[in-house]
């Protein structure tokens, strides 16, 4: 695995773990300590502190510190104008600002910090309100913080801010469930954004499939919604789509980018990616169920001739079946090194021939239904927009889609007929 990939994975799992930690209704002190470890450990930062801001009397109180010695026990004054400036910087703080704030903070509290070096100060701001501060010292590498580092730290800090704030809410008014729920939804959004950035990294490694992971996520979402899945599971499968090829991060780069079809040895290397993906995703705590399994099984086939496990029919999780179809659809509708994208008629013909053997009829039907609705204009154009300018005159596909729907709707029988026909 190359260094960038590893860095990405390490910070990504810190974020996933932190999200889980904040959302779990555990002991506040333990939540804070764990979160702070995750923040420092994401970049191996040697010292730092989390402080809670108290408007009255205008001070910050340290709630977690590492490597700062005993000197930082009592609360430190924070003037109203400084607090205001910090909250206006919000979560979109720049590296220069974070450094400047650190300087100012150190100067204001020379005695307290004595010999301690603080390089960055990040304000914890939730809903424009200053919740607290994160103070950070140097990294174990001794190198300067980068913009990328700051992005990671900001995302992690936002989680800690939400954690502190929702604890306060609970303290103040017993319960304010709605408010908390909205905050947690915000965290999920951060997680999703991170995963999307991650998917882009997967696609960058494989230069022939740019944008593939993100599109597979979106196609999967469209199909699952058409199948009537609840919102939460639809979100889960979108994430699974983004991450389904994550195992490619450890597949030999020369194989990944070899022009032309794979030889047997290259194919074997390539076929490692579903299981490798499962291994990468398993130790990470995701806010959605079964993400690792969907990566593992996205090359299984209904007839059991897929890989890596050769599962058959209902042994394959429904989510994996959706990702399989979405994956094939995107593969066929984009240019590949060994062939140009196929005409949509050919794509549908391929689906039709392989329904029951490779694809699940139910999934194929949901796909056809969603496609048809968009062509007829009874549904927002999402699939069509993803296909973009590549194709035109989709109306001609309607009869084909309708026919497939009448053939495959109803499941079982057609499966047998199709298998017999091959």
């Amino acid at each position: 695995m190359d260094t960038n990939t590893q860095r990405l994975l390490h910070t990504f799992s810190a974020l996933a773990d932190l999200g889980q930690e904040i959302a779990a209704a555990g002991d506040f002190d333990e939540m804070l300590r764990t979160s702070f470890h995750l923040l420092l450990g994401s970049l191996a930062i040697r010292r730092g502190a989390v402080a809670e801001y108290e408007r009255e009397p205008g001070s910050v109180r340290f709630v977690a510190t590492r490597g700062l010695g005993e000197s930082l026990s009592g609360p430190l004054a924070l003037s109203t104008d400084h607090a205001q400036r910090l909250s206006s910087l919000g979560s979109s703080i720049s590296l220069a600002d974070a450094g400047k704030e650190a300087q100012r903070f150190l100067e204001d509290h020379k005695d307290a910090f004595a010999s301690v070096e603080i390089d960055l100060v990040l304000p914890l701001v939730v809903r424009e309100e200053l919740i607290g501060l994160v103070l950070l010292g140097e990294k174990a590498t001794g190198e300067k913080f980068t913009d990328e580092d700051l992005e990671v730290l900001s995302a992690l800090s936002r989680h800690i801010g939400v954690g502190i704030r929702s604890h306060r809410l609970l303290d103040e008014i017993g319960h304010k469930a709605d408010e908390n729920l909205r905050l947690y939804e915000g965290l999920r959004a951060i997680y999703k954004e991170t995963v999307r950035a991650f998917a882009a990294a997967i696609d960058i490694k494989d230069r022939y499939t740019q944008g593939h992971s993100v599109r597979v996520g979106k196609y999967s979402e469209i199909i699952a919604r058409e199948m009537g899945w609840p919102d939460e599971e639809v979100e889960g499968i979108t994430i699974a789509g983004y991450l389904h090829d994550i195992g490619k991060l450890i597949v030999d780069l020369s194989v990944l980018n070899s022009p032309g079809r794979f030889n047997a040895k290259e194919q074997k290397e390539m076929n490692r990616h579903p299981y490798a993906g499962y291994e990468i995703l398993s130790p990470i705590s995701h806010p959605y169920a079964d993400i690792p399994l969907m990566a593992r099984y996205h090359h299984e086939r209904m007839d059991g001739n897929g890989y890596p496990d050769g599962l058959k029919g209902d042994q394959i999780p429904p989510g994996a079946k959706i990702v399989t179809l979405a994956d094939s659809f995107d593969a066929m509708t984009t240019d590949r090194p060994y062939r140009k994208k196929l005409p949509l008629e050919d794509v549908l013909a391929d689906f039709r021939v392989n329904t029951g053997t490779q694809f699940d009829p139910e999934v194929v039907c949901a796909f056809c239904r969603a496609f048809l609705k968009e062509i007829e204009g009874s549904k927002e154009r999402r699939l069509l927009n993803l296909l973009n300018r590549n194709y035109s005159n989709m109306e001609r596909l309607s009869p084909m889609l309708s026919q497939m729907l009448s053939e495959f709707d109803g499941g079982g029988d057609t499966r047998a007929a199709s298998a017999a026909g091959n």
Partner: protein
Amino acid sequence: MSDTTGESSVQARSVGDAAIIYASDYLNKLSGERIERECKRQLESGHRTLIINFRDTEIVNSIGVSILVGVIDAAEKSTARLIFSDVNNHTAELFQMLGLTRHVSLVSSEDEALSLISEAQP
């Protein structure tokens, strides 16, 4: 031959003025703080070298890294030597990337760690 010391389940033993501490799978949770406390205790009791053995540690997450950075700090403060043994490849790469290897020697076994110490003090 091994005297097991320390709080509840952190395993540690002394060899001369070195202490060997077993990271196990505590490292990746808040329970990792136990390892840090155990290391500090060993330093306070006069050990000049800490060897942390990772033989039962499959992966190290961010919590684990934070704990280890704390141990590095403690060792540097008491000018003790810190050695990690039995670190798997993946974890070794992570330590390298995050800069931990600038402060710690990595060796493949406890024996190698012990011979490293005896080389240093002829």
